[in-house]
């Protein structure tokens, strides 16, 4: 069985007498070390899918298995990088990572080892210099880096990124994409990233999962991206394989599953 196995997952939200079927028959296998992007129009339930994998939301039908264990509740083996960084503003950058490290590694690592581990993870995202700053004192891109460091520091089996760069400007976003690619190359983590940016999806992912429009969205198509790593954004821009993959995603999003503003 695959490392992460999502089988026949269905999610229906019930509020009072209203039933809203968000996801239907989601079927996906992800191998260890794979980088998967999930793309789709807004409202297609891609964040819901991520929350299901994270365990923050319960599945209605079907099941999710990670490394042989059924996903039932959230846990540090499925660390999430949230869209708006969600660092605790009253803690310094160091303490934000420390909160996670202390919780996950208490009893497994000594105090000195935990300290080194925190700094090591801040180094991975090049944020050691801001260790004593509070989230309010650093830029949005830096906050998101710290959010990634906090998630990495939990040593998750799978790292879940929920539109991590959606709120950033294009240049900062490119820097962070490079940072994530670099981390993926060095650590070989399994990563699942939600995005609505076609270039981001193609550049970062081994496979792109394309979602149909909601309600009752499902996986419309899965595209392999046969680009060699390490990838370089400038070289990729003229690479035929990149352009072909990009075109396939665009075609899926704008021809086969055009987004129609939902009239509620």
């Amino acid at each position, binding site marked *: 069985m695959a490392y992460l196995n999502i089988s026949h997952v269905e999610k229906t939200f019930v509020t009072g007498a209203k039933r809203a079927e968000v996801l239907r028959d989601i079927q996906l296998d992800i191998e260890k070390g794979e980088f998967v992007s999930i793309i789709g129009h807004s409202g297609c339930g891609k964040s819901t899918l991520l929350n299901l994998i*994270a*365990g*923050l939301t319960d599945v209605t039908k079907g099941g999710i298995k990670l490394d042989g264990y059924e996903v039932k*509740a*959230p*846990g*540090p083996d*499925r*660390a*999430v990088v*949230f869209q*708006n960084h*969600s*660092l*605790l*503003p*009253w*803690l310094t950058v160091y303490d934000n990572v420390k*909160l*996670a490290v202390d*919780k*996950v590694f208490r009893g497994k690592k000594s105090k000195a080892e935990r300290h080194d581990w925190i700094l090591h993870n801040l180094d991975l995202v090049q944020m050691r210099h801001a260790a004593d700053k*509070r*989230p*309010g*004192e650093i830029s949005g891109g830096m906050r998101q880096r710290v959010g990634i460091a906090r998630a990495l520091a*939990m040593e998750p089996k799978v790292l879940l990124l929920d539109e991590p760069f959606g709120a950033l400007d294009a240049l900062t976003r490119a820097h962070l994409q490079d940072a994530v690619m670099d981390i993926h190359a060095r650590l070989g983590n399994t990563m699942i990233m939600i995005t609505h940016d076609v270039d981001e999806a193609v550049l970062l992912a081994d496979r792109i999962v394309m979602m149909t429009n909601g309600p009752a969205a499902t996986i419309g198509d899965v595209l392999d991206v046969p680009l060699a790593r390490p990838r370089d954004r400038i070289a990729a821009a003229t690479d035929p394989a990149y352009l072909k993959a990009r075109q396939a995603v665009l075609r899926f999003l704008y021809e086969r599953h055009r987004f129609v503003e939902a009239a509620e």
Partner: protein
Amino acid sequence: MSVVTKLTPKTQGLAPVATISALPSRPRKRLVLPGWAKGLAVNTVPPLMVMLVILAIWEIAFSAPGSNLPTPSVVWMESADLILEPFYVYGSQDIGLGWRVLTSLERVAYGFGFASIIGILIGAVIGQSIWMMRGLDPIFQVLRTVPPLAWLPISLAAFMDSRPSAIFVIFITAIWPIIINTAAGVRNIPADYRNVAKVLRLNQIEFFFKIMVPAAAPYIFSGLRIGVGLSWLAIVAAEMLTGGVGIGFFIWDAWNSSRLTDIIVALVYIGLVGLLLDKLVSFIGRVVTRGTSEA
């Protein structure tokens, strides 16, 4: 007619430009203050001026022979010792106002302290649970409108002693805003912080200290600030009835012995201490919530 035409003759009547160039040779003397002194002056001079005016009006209004209230000068003549020596001790019942204020503050510290701890805990529980909220909120909304002194007879009956009764009155007065504000703060904890706690699998106690209290701190402190103000209101009133050596009883005692000037001095004390309490809590709040209000 417009203003311009009226002004024209004036401008024409001014001295020629050449003489103006002579002005810099004799600069006007101007008080130059350093930054901090300027700030201090801006904040202290206007209220001092206003106070002087009020005192003057008061002096004039009540200086007629046979008026009911003493004038400021009479207050000074008869009660200067209270103002100048807050910490004298002439006997067990004859002590300076400073000591009396401290006695009252001690009671406030107990009552308000208990109210803070229990209020924050109850508020946290209510904020976390929608059902507790639905069940308890209406009761709290009713109880919080009960005036402090209305609790006193029940409290006296329960404790059979004036000291714990006074402390209980403060407790029961201060606790409602603390509960209600804490609950509001906990309800407003962003979902993101809760998700972080879930992913990290923080237990209830870790969640309380690491997420809930810091996240709700701004709300909690606005509750504490209201609470400390109400405590001070309540203690003065409660002491009038329960006796003892507090500032509230001093006022009642002074009224019974017709020392109106002493009462006026005591009122100023109460006002200033109340202001200090408020500033103190809001200062602590500012320091503690430094991080939370950012970002």
